[in-house]
């Protein structure tokens, strides 16, 4: 009996902050702007505007995740080889302590026409380029913000790897590439999956950066949710998009996750 009593706070927590909000979102998605029960929001979602927005969101989230992975894996690998691992790791985590908005504003200054980056370009003779409000800057800043969440799980997975397995592979005649492909990578796959989830899922619903860094030239589902709730006050449509975002996220978790949940921070 006491065992159940201890579980009550957790059940309450899950009920109030996980299950109830999801039910509310699904409930709201069935109401049109005038408050009548209808399926009109779902009809609207399957119009070209929202389908293209969905495609855009997935495409940018994919780009951000892929680039993060490409940079994060070698970084994590090199980290395990360094002398002062903890110090390097701290330096990588450090930027996550700074508020996201502050970092975005910093990039507004750095990437501006008269910003530091363009000053460097001028000095190098490349000439001033438009960096702000481009796809490039949007992906760049997003990768910068999310990359610690990719590095950490991969680093942990690499740390856990038993070095004698690599020695064994080398003893048995495998070259560097084969060792990586057949031994190291498969054994750290859980870390990679955890990292991809930690990056892909939040980038799917990014919204602040789309305005600050991309100047609303990139419109994702997250931007639309924000608009519908705060500006249009069309909660039904906002909730409908949220429903599709949740379905997308759940299916990604199902696809990439397995019984074991990688090694997460």
């Amino acid at each position: 009996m006491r065992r159940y009593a201890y579980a009550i706070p957790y059940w309450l927590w899950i009920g109030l902050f996980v299950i109830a909000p999801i039910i509310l979102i699904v409930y709201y998605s069935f109401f049109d702007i005038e408050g009548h029960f209808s399926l009109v929001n779902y009809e609207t979602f399957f119009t070209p505007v929202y389908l293209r927005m969905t495609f855009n969101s997935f495409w940018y989230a994919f780009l951000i995740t892929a680039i993060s992975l490409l940079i994060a894996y070698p970084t994590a690998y090199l980290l395990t080889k360094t002398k002062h691992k903890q110090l390097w790791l701290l330096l990588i985590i450090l930027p996550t302590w700074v508020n996201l908005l502050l970092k975005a504003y910093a990039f507004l200054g750095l990437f501006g026409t008269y910003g530091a980056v363009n000053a460097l370009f001028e000095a190098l003779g490349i000439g001033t380029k438009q960096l702000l409000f481009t796809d490039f800057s949007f992906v760049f800043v997003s990768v910068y913000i999310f990359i610690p969440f990719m590095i950490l799980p991969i680093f942990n997975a690499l740390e856990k790897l038993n070095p004698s397995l690599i020695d064994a592979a080398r003893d048995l005649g495998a070259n560097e590439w084969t060792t990586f492909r057949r031994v190291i990578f498969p054994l750290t796959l859980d870390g990679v999956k955890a990292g991809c989830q930690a990056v892909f899922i939040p980038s799917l619903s990014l919204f602040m950066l789309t305005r600050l860094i991309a100047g609303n030239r990139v419109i994702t589902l997250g931007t639309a949710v924000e608009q519908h709730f705060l500006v249009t006050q069309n909660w039904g449509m906002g909730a409908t998009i949220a429903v599709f975002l949740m379905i997308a996220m759940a299916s990604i978790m199902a696809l990439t996750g397995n019984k074991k949940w990688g090694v997460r921070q």
Partner: protein
Amino acid sequence: MKKVVSLFLLVWLVAFSLLYVTKTIESSKGYGGNNTVTIYNWGDYIDPALIKKFEKETGLKVIYQTFDSNEAMMTKIAQGGTTFDVAVPSEYAISKMKEEGLLLPINHAKIPNLRYIDERFLNLSFDPGNQYSIPYFWGTVGIVYNRALLGGKEITSWNDLWDPAFKNQILLVDGAREIIGMALNSLHYSLNDTNKTHLQQAKQKLDALTPNVKAIVGDEIKMLLANEEAAIGIVWSGDAAEIMWENERLDYVIPKEGTNLWFDNMVIPKTAKNIEGAHQFINFMLDPKNAAQNAEYVGYSTPNKKALEYLPKEIVEDERFYPSEQLANKLEVYENLGKSMLAYYNELFLQFKMHRK
């Protein structure tokens, strides 16, 4: 475990003693109770010297708090809990607050200075008979441009913005009514047009503007224009006045096709405790001399006709902020179009944002 508990207790102790200290300081200074008026206003939107003057004249203490968006202000007032005796929302927020019963009626008998307000600014659609609101400042939506960056080119109308020479030079403010309104105005339609054919035409016209648009941004637009990130910006006149202080190469123009006329108004929210003091404050701010002093400090346009006499000539004759009658007749106040029409405006705006170069 012991450590955790004692740390926890320490935090509580510090929090409570701070609360106690602030209470004692407030009461020793005469705050709290019935002799205070709490003003809830936009940041940097009043001459602080006027608050001192008001305190001296009436013996009331003023607690001045600020907000940075109508939405944030409305949420705080709707929640209750905090006392605000006077607030300064914009006109669309007033019609919303009225609908939600967040406002108390204003007793005109206690505001004799109301007679100084220009009739053009009274009895408007968002508050017929000014039952709940008294005008504080007003302004327009227009074009800020950087003469130097445009090589001395002049901009006088909305339609000038479609000039291919301005490729990638325009920053738009992230507001559906403002931007769709701009397109409607450029087609010589009303800002409050609800004809869907007209609105579709406006959207198509906006799509044609896409090559010239550098970005659609929020409040950052002020910083970006002051830093010359782009040469042209669509902004509210108040923001324009502010950045023209920072960067002298900027100029503001009210487009000749006409544009939006907006108001910030004093209201008494339902959270008010000192209703008498609130009326006194509103009346004080309408005194022509005070209104003139305030307008000179803040830099916005005052609705107080009599106050114009006390303002320097170069301010009153500046047609960018006090447009001539002929232009003023083309200005329109946003009407509350209803939820579904507003949703349609926002839908079109979203589609415009998604239109790629």
